């Protein structure tokens, strides 16, 4: 592209560098269309690039990870999907992926804790598994979060299982995140006692601990920013730890403040532009200059709106990070680029 991928001046948005190194579980949420799955994947990569073993989990049945990393659809089983290259003496990290579905989680849970061999199968035959995972309210979320919890708390009990340095959860969207994580709240009216309730309580202790952070992905537009602010309030009210706001799809900053102002007020120097274009050996026409000036004005207007939304994000009292909009869309190379940006900005 012939330019620095992103101006250094805007890479650090946190007032002081935050230390996220003690965090074991990164939950990534965001309004639909803001790119939360992309950010979750980029975050997992950036953590792995520091030599960590990272588990990236998805719970919405979309197989988004497989698509982003261009690998076969993922089963209910941990798969290594990306491994780093050794840099000097540092051992490379890796990203493993896990596609969590409630049905498999329930069967595994039954097998693990209740040794329900035959009964487990019978449950399936009677449609109980289907019932419990699609109809019974809240149970689905308990199962999904329960599996994340299990991966986070690997210990001597399950010797074969791999222990991870960090887990990144591509979670449901902002509008549903508090309900999703607040599993015992959801069950409160239903199961006051019993194993499901106990399980939910245990999961909650991890979610409310300093080892967990919930990051919110947004874009600099009114509705997503408003939803992010609401989401932060809800999470805090439920005593769930808010991590960072990650602003995605930020426009390139090819124009400085003075130029932006000139573009907005229609005072860009057309003669200078024409002369420059001729000097750069462009076959310049009036229409071309008109088009460039018009595009600049449109850009300047959007930048002004972005700035207004950025001010709101800054006032949220949460560290925030910014990632650029990649003009060619996000492929695996794009994910690596975004991961490098997150690392540079200190999130990993």
């Amino acid at each position, binding site marked *: *592209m*012939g330019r620095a991928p992103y101006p250094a001046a805007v890479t650090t948005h946190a007032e002081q560098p935050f230390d996220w190194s003690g965090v074991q579980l990164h939950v990534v949420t965001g309004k*639909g*269309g803001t790119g939360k799955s992309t950010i979750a994947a980029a975050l997992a990569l950036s953590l792995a690039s520091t030599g960590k073993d990272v588990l990236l989990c998805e719970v*919405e*049945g*979309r197989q988004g990870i497989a698509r982003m990393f261009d690998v076969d659809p993922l089963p209910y089983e941990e798969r290594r999907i990306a491994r780093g290259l050794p840099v000097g003496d540092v051992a490379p990290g890796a990203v493993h992926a896990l596609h969590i579905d*409630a049905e498999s989680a329930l069967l595994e849970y*039954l097998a693990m804790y*209740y040794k*329900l061999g*035959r*009964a487990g199968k*019978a*449950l399936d*035959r*009677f*449609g*109980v598994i*289907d*019932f419990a*995972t*699609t*109809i*019974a*309210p809240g149970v*689905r979320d308990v199962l999904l979060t329960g599996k994340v919890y299990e991966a986070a708390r690997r210990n001597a009990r399950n010797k074969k299982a791999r222990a991870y340095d960090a887990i990144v959860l591509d979670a*449901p*969207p902002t509008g549903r995140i508090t309900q999703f994580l607040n599993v015992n709240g*959801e069950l409160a*009216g*239903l*199961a006051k006692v*019993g*194993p*499901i309730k106990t399980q939910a309580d245990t999961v909650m202790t991890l979610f409310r601990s300093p080892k967990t952070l919930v990051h919110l992905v947004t874009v600099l*537009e*009114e*509705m997503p920013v408003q939803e992010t602010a609401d989401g932060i309030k809800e999470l805090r009210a439920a005593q769930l730890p808010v991590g960072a706001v990650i602003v995605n799809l930020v426009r*390139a900053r*090819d*124009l*400085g403040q003075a*130029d932006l102002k000139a573009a907005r007020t229609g005072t*860009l120097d057309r003669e*200078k*532009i024409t002369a*420059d274009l001729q000097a*750069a050996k*462009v076959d310049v026409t009036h*229409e*071309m200059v008109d*088009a460039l000036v*018009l*595009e*600049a004005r*449109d850009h300047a207007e959007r930048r002004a*709106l972005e700035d207004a939304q950025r001010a709101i994000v800054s006032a949220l009292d949460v560290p925030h990070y910014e990632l650029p909009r990649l*003009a*060619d869309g996000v492929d695996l190379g794009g994910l690596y680029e975004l991961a490098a940006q997150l690392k540079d900005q200190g999130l990993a």
Partner: protein
Amino acid sequence: MTTHRPRVGPLAATTERAPRLDIDALIDDPATGIIVCCGSGGVGKTTTSAALALRAAERGRKVVVLTIDPARRLAQSMGIEALDNTPRPVPLAVVEEGAQRPSRNQGGSLDAMMLDMKRTFDEVVLSQASPEKARAILDNPFYIALSSSFSGTQEYMAMEKLGQIHAQAQLDGSYDLIVVDTPPSRSALDFLDAPERLSSFLDGRFIRLLLAPARGPAKLMTAGVSMITNALTKILGAQVLRDMQTFVAAFDTLFGGFRQRAQKTFSLLQADGTAFVVVAAPEPDALREAAYFVERLTEDEMPLAGLVVNRASPPLSTVLSVEEATAAADRLVATEPDSTTAGLLRLHADRARIVMREAHLRERWSTEHPGVATAVVPALSTDVHDLEGLRRIGDLLAEG
């Protein structure tokens, strides 16, 4: 959960340009009685529904828009403080002084409402059961959880509400067009699957199992059944199981009614008076969801009106290519690092790349789904705050 569906398409095709979706013809056609807007989350589905409804009303239709999105902003943009489960009239008459638009609402009207799934569920229970039975259901902890947090309830209730409004409109002529904004489901297909899922749940062996002790003598309980109940008690706890049994027993008589109405609504959706508008953004994920939906509608013989692609980048008005612009910018920066013109050229190159990518995505989509009429709506730089903003979207939709 996700069932595997084969892709549905022409199998062999040449690149096609999608025909234009004529929104005005759709909303002006008196035969169009229901418009369902569907698509994945974050593509501007709710705004599209509201803009369509407003435009139809101002072109003389008697419209009600049923939204699922609790965004207060949308309600306010229609001049209503907050939407609830009852349709509220949207004041249309205000035509700003000196506005170019003549009063267009010749006999048209617009009501808006937001689905309150718990209240809709409660209303159905109250209308179908005797007072004592209704109370028993409404107070049951399992019902309370089911009606307020089960992720599929919203879809059932959206269907239920659509059926109710349609029946009422048929009866008293209050509306001649219903615009439905579907829930932001995990999958856009959940909405269509709601009646089917409800039926299979109600017919399920598990329900019969839960009902068994309430209905027959205990001796009929087979060893298999008691094994199941024991397992469930282990997992859920005895209290939950008891609540569920009480609920299912009390709810049993209502099941038939529920299923019947859900199936009626499903066939209503298949009827000619219905039009599905699939909403997407020019992004791979949103278009993939749109593809699934279009293919599913085709398979189920549901009437598809077309595709709306929101948030498209505005088209370019100069022929300067990405390569030319980038090369020129590099030359300028070599002599003048802070060159404004270089900045303009890079902006242009970025924009050209995005426009090209979006055009490519749309073109590919059209080749996969030939004949699906499409309207492309350019991204607005601001959110919609008032009726005027919704009108603007409506204009853009109609220009397509």
